[in-house]
């Protein structure tokens, strides 16, 4: 059990650092979800299942969902997609030229 706890704590610290380092907002969000799930397992190990349920539902579920919707609303997800599409189009155009 102790080893599992240590592994999870290291995972959480890694996640926390990589969230702040990642440039892609979508990737950062998925890492954040992973961190929340690891935190949820740590709550179970600390014998507080009440908190674990709430953490899983709110931290990993609804907060991430709301952040996803926010990213969509501010066109952060679409922007990356269209950038890639634009690049593809210009590359193609250059090939033709």
């Amino acid at each position, binding site marked *: 059990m102790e080893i599992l706890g240590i592994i999870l704590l290291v995972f959480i610290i890694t996640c926390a650092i990589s969230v702040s380092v990642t440039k892609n907002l979508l990737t950062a969000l998925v890492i954040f979800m992973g961190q929340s799930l690891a935190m949820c397992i740590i709550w179970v190990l600390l014998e*507080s299942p*009440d908190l674990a*349920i709430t953490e899983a*539902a709110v931290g990993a*579920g*609804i907060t991430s969902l*709301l952040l996803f919707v926010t990213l969509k*609303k501010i066109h952060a997800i679409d922007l990356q997609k269209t950038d890639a599409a634009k690049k593809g189009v210009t590359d193609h155009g250059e090939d033709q030229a």
Partner: protein
Amino acid sequence: MAKTRPDYESSLFARFLRWLQGGSTQLDDEMSHTMDDKASLSHSEADKIAQEHEAKYEARLAAMAEQEKNMYAHVHAWASNQGKGLSNWLYRILAVVICVGIIVLLVSTAAELPPYGSPDNPAHNEVAERYIEKGMQETGAVNIVAGMILDYRAFDTLGESNVLFIAAVTVLILLRMTTRPDGKPTTSQLEAECDDRMYEPKNDLILQHQASFLVPMILLFGIYGLMNGHIGPGGGFGGGAIMGAGLILYLNAFGFKKTERFFTFKTFSIVSVAALSFYAVSKAYSFFTGANHLPSIITPGTPGMLFSAGLIPYLNIAVGMVVCCTMYAFYTLFRKGDM
């Protein structure tokens, strides 16, 4: 017909009545008379003075605008030349200093903490002892946490539920799109809908089949969490959040048309307000009877039974309803700007 005194019109009551009905009082009438007199006496003179004033004012405004423009140009030149380098330099130094300072503070605090689980820790005082030893007898809840947050500290939980409700109302004020009076969608609503259709897969068969299997399970688990909060792990916040997540999954799979059959803005307001009022009223009753040692109809009951622990299961349901509605309202308001 009732007799009226001769000086009724100028009496205090009559004036108050007139003021109450939005009419003008005697004082107002006098004041307006005197003002009219003054205005009629020196109409042309006043006009002249006003014109002069206006000309002076405009000249001053123009001078101020010119000055401001110069200042902006100066500041802009400074910011793009020396200021940029300076602020960059300052920013980096400050970032490192603040970061190191916070790390040192936190690590030194963590080093000063008493050892985990030691019996002479300040957290082990008579309050915690009382909760653990007498919690089950006094509240009837097997789950000590539920007994604490919904009985000993029920007032805290009322505040938390109110915070959630206020957050939902704030999001409603900020993000809800107004509909036109004739009921047709506005341009921003149409835009939002267009946005939604472009980037969201509609009528996804896999998602719909998954959802029709998962949503009942999720909702059932949420209800189990609500009803079981005083016996085992669960409780209002967790159960409500799970139910809200289930509703969001249903919405994502089947679209707004299906959810609007049972969850609209009206449902949201009625359910949240009813749950919060029930919480406040029932807890007020138990506070008043408990504080004054009056006999109360609320009894702890047999610990471990479903309908026991006094008010705790009902308060759990009330909190869960508020949380569920708030979560669902957040999601729909973020996505569509309406419920």
